[in-house]
């Protein structure tokens, strides 16, 4: 049972000091979680702290590769609207 940081991480450092297990470390191209240390905050906090402060949707996933913060959940931008905006920008 461990969380994972994936490539959309922007290296903002917010998660690192919050981890009760010191499982998060700086790495290139992005921060990583030591799977052996990660407890998903069980016993320490109700919510996994890294995913609770992370500002980037999809940057932290569970063992099933599911994002803890799915698209639209943090920005409030509906995914369909986001996709439409991207299409409009590239059509310019």
């Amino acid at each position, binding site marked *: 049972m461990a969380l994972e940081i994936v490539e*959309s991480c*922007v*290296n*903002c*450092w*917010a998660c690192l000091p*919050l981890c009760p297990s010191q499982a998060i470390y700086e790495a290139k191209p992005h921060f990583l979680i030591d799977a052996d240390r990660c407890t998903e905050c069980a016993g320490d*906090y*109700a*919510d996994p*702290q890294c995913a*609770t*402060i992370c*500002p*980037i949707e999809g940057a932290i996933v569970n063992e099933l590769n599911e994002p803890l913060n799915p698209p639209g959940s*943090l*920005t*409030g*931008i509906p995914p369909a*609207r*986001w996709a439409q*905006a991207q299409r*409009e*920008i590239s059509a310019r």
Partner: protein
Amino acid sequence: MDLPVIRTGGCSAGSCGSSAAQTNGLPDDIRRRVENHPCYSEEAHHHFARMHAAVAPACNIQCHYCNRKYDCANESRPGVVSELLTPEQAVKKTLAVAAAIPQMSVLGIAGPGDPLANPERTFATFRMLAEKAPDIKLCVSTNGLALPECVEELAKHNIDHVTITINCIDPDVGAQIYPWIFWKHKRVRGREAAAILIEQQQKGLEMLVAKGVLVKVNSVMIPGVNDEHLKEVSRVVKAKGAFLHNVMPLIAEAEHGTFYGVMGQRSPTPEELKALQDACEGDMNMMRHCRQCRADAVGLLGEDRGAEFTMDKVEAMELTDEFLAEALARRAALREKVAAEREAKKARAHAPQPQQAVITLHRPSQKSALAGRHVAPEGRPVLMAVAAKGGLIAEHFGHAREFLVYEVTGAGAKLVGHRKTDLYCAGDDSCGEAVDVLGRTIEALEGCEVVLCSKIGYEPWGRLEAAGIAPNGEHPLEEIEPACVAVWHEMLQAGKLAQPAPERKCA
């Protein structure tokens, strides 16, 4: 805090004009504390430079005008950086910048996240810099969520300028601006989140004021969301002792990937921004010269030199004690020179004036405030754009990356804003899209009737005239305010000020 209201008192002579507006009438100790700070004193921003050290990447809230993924070298707006620094790197960079730019007077930490969500990195930077360059003022800009718990530490580090971004005091308004905050190990959303943030901001403001720290309040004007509400915000923060209020326009483009940008929330027009700033000014000292700079900006406001001080260049420099001592001496000499120039300017301004130089008031439109035997001539206010450098009309039209906008009457000229010519990454050369730069510049000057610059080419002259803007190159290297007033008098004599401003022809 009941600071004397600045604009009604103060200097009564021609060339003090708006540049004195922000500091005249302040108690001496406060004036001394802001006179060399470009972000706190309009007059200082012509002469002094600042830099932002991007040491604070983490944030504890999300704002709908921010996108944490963004990094573009061509962008200039808060929250954007190209290079994150460690505190050690930040100190070295600051020392290098302060050695190369003797105008450097301030190190601010403003992100790219929130400085107080990164307290170790922020305070380590301040601690180390204070040892090596004690003449550099330190300041922070924060969203306020972690402010109450940091006030002691801020005071300990001798940080006497703090900016808090306060966009609302009503949680229902806040719920439309902040989707979430990180609070006590939880992600809190909606109205509840906004209520906590607002409470922390107000508490932090009160605590700072009680400690004697100068507090500036920044607000982002979001049409239809908080524009009307900001008048109330202005009243409240002033009553609690904030020293200066800076209402800034929302920056929202779909390509920035922010909530507001993608959802089509519009930015205010320059006219709307000015109207709100004018309305808030009834209650407090307003800042009109903010450039909404990047979290890694370097140099004078409006003239970013960040590219000269990338970390690889800074790392290659050797900063010996001797070198740093020389740099410190150069800065001290420059400050003395500016102080002497200010004194000389003040002396000139207070000397007997020819009768044309009527009283300068800080609210020139208020005729009732005119005193004594001077009477301002009748005529409507005119917006004039100025290609400025160092407080003078000293920039070539084609080289100006921004124009200062003054509202001018016979009684004086007041800075009311600025217009950028390289509009936020709107497709300039580096983005590979061919655009009509001159046409864009003319569009940016919407509402201005005159452009003052040191020189101007034949083509832009014609295009400006065709767009209903009068180019004026007759006051090169002159001080801005008296030159603007002189141009206004010419317009008055030519009978141009009896009617309302002409409708703009399409550029």
